[in-house]
C-alpha cells in the first residue's frame, strides 16, 4: 500500500514551479482529451493557446476576461492569506453587478459622462455589503464562512434572476429576462476604438499595484498575514481577529463587486440572468495558481482567460461542447493540487 509521508522540508522553488508544472500537465491531459474526442490535438491546443493571441482583437478579449478574474483573485488572495475561506466571490461579483446595474438604470438621458463612476461605486458597495453579510455572521455567530459565502452566492444569483424577470425587466424586451440597455453615460469608456476593452483594465492595474503594496508593505497587510499563518501569534501581538475577518472579506467583496460593475457596465451593457460565466469560482483557481501573490495572479488570470476564450472558440471551430471550459479548468486545478501534494508529501511504498 502506498502512503503519503510529509516531507521534512518542502522545496520553496518547487512551490513556485508547481503552477508551471500544472499548466504542462493540463496540456498533456488536454492532448489526451482531444485524441479521445477524435480531434487533432494540435488543432485543439492551437485553439486554446495560439488563436486567441493572433490578433489585436484576440488580445483585447483576453484582457477583457482577465479583468474580472484578476480583481476577484486579488480579493480572494487577501482572504486566503488571512485564513478566511471566502469562496463566495461569485456571489459578491453578481451582487456588485446588480447594484451597479441598478445605479445604471437610474441614469437619465441627460446624465453627465462621468456617471459611470457612480455605477462603479455602486458595484463596490454591493459586493462589499454582500461580503459584509458573511463577515457579520462569522464575527457575530462564528458561522462557517465557507458555507455562508457559498450559499449567499446562490442567493445572489436568484436575486438577479428575480430582478431581470420582474421589476427590472425591460418592458420593450419581448419578455426576455433582460433589463433595459444602459444609457451611454453609465457605461465604462472604451480604451481603444474597435475593441471591447474598457478603462477597466487600467483600473485593474492600479488595484493590482495597491493590493501588492498592501500585502507586502502595509502594517494592516502584515497583521492579516500573521492572523493567517499563526492565529495565536496574532492574539499574542494584540492584533484583532475581528479586524482580519472584516477587512479581508470587505476588501474581497469590494474588488469582486467592482469586477461585476465593470462587466455589466462594460461588455454586457445590461443585466441578464448570466452576468458571470463563473468568474468568481474560476478566480479561486486563479488565486491558488498565482500562489496568492498579486504578480502570480496576473499570470494565472492570463492562463484562465485563455481557457475561457479557448473554450468558446473550440465550440465554434471544433464543434466541442461548452463544457470544455469547465473540463480544462478542472484539469488545471487537479494538476495544481496534485503538484502541491507532491511538494509537501512523498510516496512511501510499504
Amino acid at each position: 500500500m502506498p502512503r503519503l509521508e510529509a516531507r521534512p522540508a518542502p522545496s520553496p522553488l518547487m512551490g513556485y514551479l508547481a503552477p508551471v508544472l500544472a499548466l504542462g500537465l493540463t496540456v498533456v491531459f488536454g492532448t489526451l482529451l482531444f485524441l479521445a474526442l477524435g480531434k487533432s490535438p494540435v488543432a485543439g491546443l492551437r485553439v486554446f493557446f495560439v488563436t486567441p493571441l493572433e490578433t489585436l482583437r484576440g488580445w483585447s478579449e483576453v484582457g477583457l476576461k482577465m479583468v474580472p478574474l484578476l480583481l476577484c483573485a486579488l480579493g480572494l488572495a487577501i482572504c486566503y492569506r488571512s485564513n478566511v475561506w471566502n469562496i463566495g466571490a461569485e456571489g459578491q461579483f453578481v451582487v456588485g453587478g446588480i447594484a451597479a446595474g441598478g445605479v445604471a438604470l437610474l441614469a437619465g438621458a441627460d446624465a453627465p459622462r462621468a456617471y459611470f463612476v457612480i455605477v462603479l461605486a455602486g458595484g463596490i458597495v454591493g459586493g462589499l455589503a454582500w461580503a459584509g453579510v458573511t463577515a457579520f455572521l462569522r464575527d457575530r455567530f462564528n458561522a462557517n464562512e465557507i458555507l455562508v459565502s457559498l450559499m449567499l452566492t446562490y442567493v445572489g444569483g436568484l436575486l438577479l434572476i428575480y430582478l431581470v424577470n420582474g421589476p427590472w425587466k425591460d418592458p420593450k424586451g419581448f419578455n426576455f429576462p433582460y433589463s433595459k440597455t444602459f444609457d451611454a453615460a453609465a457605461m465604462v469608456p472604451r480604451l481603444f476604438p474597435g475593441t471591447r476593452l474598457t478603462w477597466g483594465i487600467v483600473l485593474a492595474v492600479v488595484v493590482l499595484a495597491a493590493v501588492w503594496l498592501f500585502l507586502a508593505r502595509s502594517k494592516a497587510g502584515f497583521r492579516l498575514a500573521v492572523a493567517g499563518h499563526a492565529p495565536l501569534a496574532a492574539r499574542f501581538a494584540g492584533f484583532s481577529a475581528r479586524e482580519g475577518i472584516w477587512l479581508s472579506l470587505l476588501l474581497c467583496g469590494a474588488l469582486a463587486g467592482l469586477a461585476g460593475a465593470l462587466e455589466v457596465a462594460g461588455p454586457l451593457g445590461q443585466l441578464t440572468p448570466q452576468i458571470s460565466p463563473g468568474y468568481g469560482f474560476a478566480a479561486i483557481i486563479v488565486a491558488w495558481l498565482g500562489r496568492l501573490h498579486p504578480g502570480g495572479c496576473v499570470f494565472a488570470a492570463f492562463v484562465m482567460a485563455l481557457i475561457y476564450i479557448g473554450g468558446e472558440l473550440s465550440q465554434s471551430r471544433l464543434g466541442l461542447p461548452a463544457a470544455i471550459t469547465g473540463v480544462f479548468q478542472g484539469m488545471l486545478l487537479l494538476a495544481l493540487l496534485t503538484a502541491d501534494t507532491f511538494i509537501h508529501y512523498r510516496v512511501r511504498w510499504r
Partner: protein
Amino acid sequence: MTAPAGTPRLALRGISKRYPGVLANDNVSLSVAPGEIHGLIGENGAGKSTLMKIVYGAVRPDAGEVLWDGAPLPAHSPAQARRAGIGMVFQHFSLFDTLTVAENVLLALPGVTDRAGLARDIEAMGEHYGLPVNAAQHVYSLSVGERQRVEIIRCLLQKPRLLIMDEPTSVLTPQAVERLFATLRQLASEGVSILYISHKLEEVRALCSRATVLRGGRVTGTCDPRQESVASLSRMMIGAEPPRATGAARQPGAALLEIDRLTMPPLERTGKALDAVSLTVRAGEVVGIAGVSGNGQGELLALISGEDRRAPPQSVRLAGAPVGGSGVVARRAHGLAFVPEERLGRGAVPVLGLHLNTLLTHDAGLTRGGLISASAIVALAASIIARFDVRTAGPTAAAKSLSGGNLQKFIVGREVVKQPRVFVVAQPTWGVDVGAAARIRQELVALADAGSAVLVVSEELDELFEICDALHVIAGGRLSARIPVAQASVERIGALMGGGAETEGAHA
C-alpha cells in the same frame, strides 16, 4: 527469558540515523541487562528520542542493528515491539481525554473483550506497584501525575520485559518523583529492564545503576552514575560545567505588577479555574511561580498579558493602572512585555523572517504612514541578533529555521531591548541548551538590576532558586503566599506543588 545468562536483554550496535541537515545518531551502541535500570542522558537534541524511537520501531535506522535477547530484531513496527515485550511511556501523553481509564487501556490491548475483568486488572496492577487509579474515571478529570500512572499501567499490562521511560518526571512534583522511583525499582527487582531517559542528572544518579551519555548524537561516555558527580556527568553531557547567573543585591521599589484576588473560570473546558490569585512584583525584583504545568499557569499568564481580557479592571494593575479589561496593545503601552511558553506559532510566526517578527511587539519608528520600513525592521532584528548572540543565517531568516534555543534568545531579546517596566516570561529556558539558558537567565537578572519587575513562570525549580528573590507556587489554580527564596526549600516548594496546605487566599 530464553536467552543464555549474561546476554543483554537489549543491545544496540552501531546505530546511525541521519535526518536532513542533522546526524541524530552516530554509531551509537549500548546494552541493557535484565533487571537493570539504565540511564540515557543528554541535552535536548542530543539524539535520545531518536534512539528510543528506533528501539520502539517507530523509526528505522540508516545503519546498525537492534539485538533482543541476543537475536537481531528485524525491521519492525511499534506493534511488533510491543509483542516482543518493549513498552514505552511517552513524554507527552497519548491518552484520549474523553474516554475512561479502562477504555484507554482497552485500546492498547487488542483482543481483550472482558471490560469488567480489565478494570479489575488495572486496579490490581495499580495496587501492586503503588499506582492507585480508578478505572472508571474519565481521563480529562485526572491530574498529570494520574495520567502518567495510567500510561505506566497500560504498559505494564502488556507484560513488558523492557520499559522505556522518556523524561517521565518533567511533569511531576518531587514527591511524585519519589513514588515513581519506588515503582521502577520494584519493577527492576522483578526482572524488568528499564531504559530511563532524562537530562536531569540528580535523578539518574539516584535511580540508575548504569548510564550512557549522548552528546550531539554520539556516545560520550558509559558510566555508573552513582560513582559520578553531577559535575563529571555534566562534563560528559555538555563538555563543560554550566555557568550560573548571579545577581547583585537589589532594593525592591514600587509595585509594578499587581494581581489582586483574581478569580476566573477557564476559557476552555479543559482549562483550570483561577481561585483568588494575588501577587505583587516590585521594581528591581525577580519573582518566580513554580508548579507542575497545567495548574493554571497558562490561564494566569493570558490574563496578565491581555490575551484574555475578562478580568475585572482593578484585579490586574500595571504600575498602579487598572488594566484587567485592556487588550495586549494597551498593556504594552503601560510597559508590559511578555514571552509566552510556545515560541513557534505564538511568540513568533514560523514562516516569517525575524525582521517581520519584530513587528509583533514593536511598533514605534518601524512604520511610516501605515507602511512598514524594511530597513528599520532589518536593523532592529540585526541589533537583537548581535546583542543576544543569536545563531542564524541573518535578520531575514525565517523564525522556524532557528533552533529552539536561538529562537528563544531572539524572542527574549526582542522584549528585553525595549527595557520593559514589567517583564513576564514563561518557561524561559525550556528546551534551550545550557549555555543559552545561562545567557537568558543573566538577562532576566540584569533587567531586574536595572529596575524592572520580572515575573518568571517555570517548571525548573533549580532555575527559580537561582534567579528569583521570592517564589509563589501554583497548584490547582490557587497561588501560594509569597515565599522569600532564602526561606524556601525544595521540599517545601514540592509539597506546595502537590497541592498541599499553606495556600493563602485573599491578602491585600
